[in-house]
C-alpha cells in the first residue's frame, strides 16, 4: 500500500494518531498511549481496480488498461479505495469497577489500502 503524502490524489492510507492523553482518556486506558485510526482515501481509476496496493507494476497497469478498454462497455460501478490489511488494537484499561481488562479488538488498525 501507499501512505498519503501532501495532496495525494491516488488511493492511499491516511495516517491519523489519536493520543489518549489529548482526549483525556489516559486515566482509564492503561496501555497503549494512543490509537492509530488510519483510513483509506483517494482515486481508484478503473485500470488499477483490484490492485492490492496501487504500487502496481507498469506492465500490470498496461494490461489493466487493455482489459478496461475492451470492457469499456461494461457498466461496472466505481472502484473504491479500501483497507487491504488490518490488525487488532490491544487495549489494557480500567472498567467502572476499577477492574483491569485486557482485550484485542480485531481489525481496528488499517495497515494498507488498495482499490476494490
Amino acid at each position, binding site marked *: 500500500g501507499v501512505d*498519503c503524502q501532501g495532496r495525494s490524489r491516488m488511493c492511499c492510507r491516511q495516517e491519523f494518531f489519536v493520543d489518549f492523553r489529548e482526549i483525556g482518556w489516559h486515566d*482509564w486506558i492503561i496501555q497503549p498511549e494512543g490509537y492509530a485510526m488510519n483510513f483509506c482515501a483517494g482515486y*481508484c481509476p478503473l485500470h488499477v481496480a483490484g490492485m492490492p496496493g496501487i504500487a502496481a507494476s507498469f506492465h500490470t497497469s498496461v494490461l489493466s488498461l487493455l482489459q478496461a478498454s475492451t470492457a469499456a462497455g461494461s457498466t461496472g460501478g466505481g472502484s473504491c479505495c479500501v483497507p487491504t490489511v488490518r490488525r487488532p488494537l490491544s487495549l489494557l484499561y480500567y472498567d467502572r*469497577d476499577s477492574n483491569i481488562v485486557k482485550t484485542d*479488538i480485531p481489525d481496528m488498525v488499517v495497515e494498507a489500502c488498495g482499490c476494490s
Partner: protein
Amino acid sequence: GAAPRADRQCPACGELALDVESHRELLLNLAKRRILDQLRLSQRPTLGRPVSRAALRAALQRLRGPPQGPLPEADGGQEYDIISFAETGLCNTTQTRLDFHFSSDSSAGGLEVQQARLMFFVQLPPNTSCTLKVRVLELSPRDTNLTSATQHLLEVDDSGWHQLRLGPEAQTACSLGHLALELAPEGQAAWSPVILAGAAHRPFVAARVRVGGRHRVRRR
C-alpha cells in the same frame, strides 16, 4: 448513481483525501465512538476506586505466568482477560472475606466466564505449613451470604503468592457480577496464616471472559 454532494464526499470512493487538520474534532470523536462501540460501552468509565500502580504491577507480573491450558474453541464474541481486585471485608484472625465485582457493562450477550483463578499472598511463620479452606459464598436474593457446599482446600507451605483455580460455581458468581469468597485455616492451627491485602499484595481474581459469543448448546 448521481455524483455525491461535495459536502458529503466519501473519501474512499474517489475524492481527495480528507484534510485531516480541518476535520480533527470529527476524527477524534469518530475514534472515541469506535473504541467505545467495540468495547460495548455506552460511555467511558468513571473510575470508582483507583488501583495503585503497585497492585497493578504485581497483578500483571503474576498473569505473565504459564498459560492456563487450552480454552474451549472460540465460537464468536469478544474475549477479555479481567483482573478484579478484592474488597477485603471481614479480616479477622481466623477468617478473611474477599468480595469481587464484575461490571456487566457489556450487557450484550452477557458475560461467559471461561476460567477464573484466585491469586493471594500468604504470610507464614518460617518452617510451617497449613491447609487453607476457601469457600465460595452463595448470595441469596437479598445479598445476605449463605455459605455454599462449595469449598476448596489448599495446602500452603511457604509465604508468598498462591493461586487457586476456581470451579463452575465461582465462575457463575463472576458472570452474575459479584463473587464472595471466605478463606480460613482448616482445623485448629496454633496460629492463623495472614492473608496480606496491602497495595502490592492485594488479592485478585483473574478471569478469562467471553462476551456476545454464541453459547454452545451442549448435546447430550
